[in-house]
């Protein structure tokens, strides 16, 4: 059962990080947002949603932690009632997790609404108007994408903190409380979404009229692509593009990380003599976990070296000026 729950966690992780990246594309957050911020200062007025809450890690952590707290409150309120009536505890989780995620997403939506206004009104001298349809029209897509991220992360945290109950193996739960687990995964998912998915948005989609196959030179900064397929582009058009590559790649990153983390820990535990009641040799278990981890790291290093060599051979030196 332990491995089955690990697989569920990995799937949830994949979905969570994919939607985190798409949400940060709809409300242009974090690194590529520096271009959206720069554009009016260079005279390029735009109709993007300038969402600059803070780093992606922290804003995601806020939504997830609030969701985790509300979920914990509801669980603590409902579980004694279920135990008294002798019903399975799953009924509490299925109510607590979505309600918590809803509250978290609403708070996130409120934070988003304030920052677009703040940044655009600070652009008064550059003559950037505030478009009310941009401001209001993006709030619901942001909230819905964020809801999916938050509900998946809250579910992951719930499973990890209740693993003893769910799988029947004692000592498998993580000792951290639910809100703290949500904070940890919220920051990690935000950091990963910021490192991988933002490249697809920042390099490809924001500068789509610049040539493919080269880095964006410093002189191009601020000259973002403001026109869309039909008329003027808004941030909603960005998500449809990035969902083809950037979003799923980001989801894959987090899914693989969670997969290998949990898998090597559990393999270590099994090799260290795991039974339903206790772990016979903790040192051996930890040692095997570390060994498998180092093995995976070596595979990654080899993969990257080969990948970079392949790219250099295939693409060749820079052509042009």
């Amino acid at each position, binding site marked *: 059962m332990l491995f089955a729950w690990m697989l569920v966690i990995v799937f949830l992780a994949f979905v969570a990080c994919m939607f985190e990246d798409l949400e940060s594309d709809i409300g242009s957050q974090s*690194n590529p947002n520096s271009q959206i911020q720069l554009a009016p200062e260079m005279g390029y007025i735009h109709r993007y949603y300038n969402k600059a809450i803070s780093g992606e890690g922290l804003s995601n952590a806020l939504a997830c932690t609030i969701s985790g707290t509300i979920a914990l409150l509801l669980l603590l309120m409902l579980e004694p009632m279920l135990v008294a009536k002798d019903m399975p505890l799953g009924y509490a989780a299925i109510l607590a997790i979505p309600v918590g995620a809803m509250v978290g997403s609403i708070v996130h939506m409120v934070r988003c609404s304030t920052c677009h206004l703040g940044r655009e009104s600070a652009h008064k001298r550059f003559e950037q108007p505030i478009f009310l349809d941009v401001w209001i029209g993006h709030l619901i897509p942001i909230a819905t994408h964020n809801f999916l991220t938050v509900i998946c992360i809250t579910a992951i945290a719930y499973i990890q903190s209740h693993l003893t109950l769910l799988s029947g193996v004692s000592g498998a739960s*993580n000792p951290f409380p639910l809100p703290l687990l949500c904070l940890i995964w919220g920051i990690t998912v935000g950091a990963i979404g910021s490192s991988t998915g933002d490249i697809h948005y920042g390099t490809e989609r924001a500068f789509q009229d610049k040539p493919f196959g080269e*880095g*964006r030179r410093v002189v191009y900064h601020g000259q973002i692509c403001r026109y869309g397929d039909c008329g003027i582009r808004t941030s909603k058009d960005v998500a449809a593009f990035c969902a083809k590559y950037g979003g799923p790649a980001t989801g894959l990153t987090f899914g693989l990380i969670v997969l290998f*983390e949990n898998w090597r820990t559990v393999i270590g535990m099994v090799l260290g003599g795991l039974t339903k009641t206790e772990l016979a040799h903790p040192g051996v278990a*930890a040692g095997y*976990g570390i060994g498998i981890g180092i093995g995976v790291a070596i595979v990654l290093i080899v993969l990257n070296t080969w990948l*970079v060599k392949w790219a250099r051979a295939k693409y060749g030196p820079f052509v042009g000026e």
Partner: protein
Amino acid sequence: MEPITLVIILVCIIIGGMFGSLGVHLLPVGGAPAAMSTATGIATGCVMLMTGSAMTGLFTASTVANFWGTNPDVFLVSLSGGVGAMLMMGFTMLIGNLIYIFGAGIVPVSGRVAVDPITKEPQTEYKTPRTDGHGVPNVAFYSGMIGGLVGGFGGALIYVVLVSQGYAGFSVETAVIVALGIFIANAIMAAYNIGGTIEGFHDPKFKERIVTGLTCAFIVSLMCGILVLIAIETGALAAGGMV
């Protein structure tokens, strides 16, 4: 509590803090320009990246520390935390490279050196002119893996020495809070030291700034460690009254 235990706790906190700072110096942080393929490194800010990898390391460390129950093996748990953070950095950099290569069509090269010091690949003729490099080249990848290992080790070390009943004996939540606070303080001072972006150990900035960075980390960790020792001595947080 015996003086020798207190000294061990202080030394572990200082080593953990300094390793955290060293880890930040080794990570290839590109900042906002890297997301536009104008600079080499991972396309995010320093603060986000190091908190993210430290949190993953802390999570793995807590799971492994739970194997023992009360007296975890300090070295094995810290190493598990380090390996966890290292794997996170590895996957992030690898898939980041996939997006650079296939999504934007560029070759990962470094902007600060003309030849890769480890694999001896020439860099300049593959670089787009008027940029400062793009992608995560091999040397930055190796630097990032080592940085993840070292940073995760430091954070997990502070956590395990605080949670272990043989040393400070805090409860799990208290140990996590204090470890997080000390790690964040060190890592942000290191981020200020490198000025926001760095390519890794081959970057000339690394040699210039590493000594200053480690000195500041030593002083900050020492002060925070003394504060934690005072808190332990009051007995209000320690194992005696613990649930």
